[in-house]
């Protein structure tokens, strides 16, 4: 059995700070991490590796520095790593990303199961998983908080707004997972040593047979046309010490103004 895990390298949002005077994010010099939810997807694959002896391939699209994320995945126990790297991939939206990923999955597969995090902390779209599945013509499920694999199917539990849904999907399929699915483990020293020497397979547009004009920014149906900073309209009323009771009074007033009490 072969499992592919889709990873994304994202800025470490724990390090993001706000520039007090300009009110904007300071992104310079930020470290990068594997998207936290993708680490849960990787852990789910590694748990299957331990229990059933499957092989795990980590796949990411990004600049050459994204090999750091793949080496981390190898250190954690992935058997194999593929980097989709080509200047023409730059500026991909979710559709173009899914196109490159699905082509790479077909070229390096077949896989019995493809796992990814439900969304990335930078783009926060949650779209690449379902888009990739459909382009691979695979059934898929999302918001997965538990799954169990049998010989030819997988049973998943999805945590959604009003409860937990159970679904069964045939293999192969693609699942996007939530963080409560497992607790990611830390890499062992031996894993780190092995990862440093490991070979990372690289694929570019040419080796995937993708016309550079149909990938990246030029192959993306959506375009960011404007970036702006929302006006901060909040005017903070601060209460402390002996004034707290007046602050609590203001709280009740705010509730009343919005008809949330005294209905």
């Amino acid at each position: 059995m072969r499992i592919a895990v889709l990873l994304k390298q994202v800025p470490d949002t724990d390090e993001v700070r706000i520039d007090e005077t300009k009110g904007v994010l300071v992104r310079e010099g930020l470290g990068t991490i594997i998207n936290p939810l993708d680490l849960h997807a990787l852990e789910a694959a590694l748990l299957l590796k331990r229990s059933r002896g499957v092989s795990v391939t980590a796949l990411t699209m990004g600049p050459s520095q994204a090999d750091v994320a793949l080496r981390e995945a190898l250190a954690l126990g992935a058997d194999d790593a593929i980097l989709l790297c080509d200047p023409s991939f730059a500026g991909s939206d979710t559709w173009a990303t899914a196109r490159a990923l699905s082509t790479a999955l077909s070229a390096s597969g077949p896989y019995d199961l493809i796992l990814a995090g439900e969304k990335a902390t930078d783009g926060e779209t949650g779209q690449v998983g379902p888009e990739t599945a459909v382009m691979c013509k695979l059934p898929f499920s999302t918001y997965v908080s538990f799954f169990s694999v049998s010989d030819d199917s997988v049973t998943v539990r999805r945590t959604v707004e009003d409860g937990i849904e159970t679904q069964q999907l045939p293999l192969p399929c693609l699942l996007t997972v939530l963080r409560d699915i497992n607790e990611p483990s830390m890499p062992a020293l031996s894993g780190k040593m092995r990862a440093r020497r490991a070979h990372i397979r690289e694929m570019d547009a040419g080796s995937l047979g993708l016309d550079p004009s149909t990938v990246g920014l030029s192959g993306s149906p959506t375009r960011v046309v404007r970036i702006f900073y929302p006006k901060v309209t909040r005017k903070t009323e601060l209460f402390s010490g002996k004034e707290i009771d007046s602050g609590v009074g203001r709280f009740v007033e705010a509730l009343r103004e919005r008809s949330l009490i005294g209905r």
Partner: protein
Amino acid sequence: MSWRGILVIGEVRSGAIQPATMELTAKARVLADADGSKVTTLLMFDDIVSDPKECIGYGADTVVFACAPAFGLFNQDIQYRTVVHLIEKIRPAIVLASATSAGRTIMPAAAAVIGTGLTADCTGLEIDPENGDLLQTRPAIGGNVMATIRTSDHRPQMATVRPRTFPIPDPDQKRKGKAERLDVPPEILQSRVLPMGIEIQEGEGSNIQDMDVVVSGGKGMARTESFGMLHELASLLGGGIGASRAAVDNRWIGYPHQVGLSGKAVSPKVYIAAGISGSVQHLAGIQTAGYIVAVNKDPDASIFRVADLALCGDLFEIVPKMIEAVKRETEK
């Protein structure tokens, strides 16, 4: 046939058309009036549903309903192919769905098949007066930056919209419109995905995205038991319980409650943050909240910079005072 009009993908849960569907239908009406085109709302359900014609009062010209046993339990595979089928049939210029778990699951699948763009979790939609394109605005990285996105050369233009972004007007009972049944081809109703059931979880946790009030606890709560007072405050206000990542990481409360970048984005009328310092990670999830009340002992906490009401002091003294004050007000 050119691409024209707006299709709203409605959401029916436990036989009820969701408020977010009315919200989107009303917003679609405003957008469609820019060029005098039509609004169609799609409802997929099995047997029971509140009156489909309800959507007409909010602005739909046509309510298309797909009624089949296969729409009983959520099946993304059947729903996205039904959406694609309807898009190919009526060729709308714009397709909107709520950014709920269902909308965020079926829309990307539909967009992938059609080969068009999709913008996630929009908090602003406008028609460009120059060329009629849909301008889709969403929070980017941490919610501190807004990005406006355009799908120029592909149709339809697809977007999911964060629930509770736009006001829901009173329905116009006199508005005329029609309800049409969609005959879904049998091959679409056959699926490789087999829904087995749903355990409905009532209560404060999982549906915080639909709540008027969310009361959240963070690191300052210090232990599971102290969430008891947040539950009390939330239940007095008919609200739900949220949490920062720190509180979830400490296992004081479950992940469905997590608000922020790796959890949920919420848009309550009032958001109460107790013992939450306000990391970028957390603030991103409350950016569209109406009124933010923060309780924190650290006067320099970032949460105070985004709060409307900052109560600086010991939350174990202040929250009980808030509870008492609400009780007094309710008993009046």
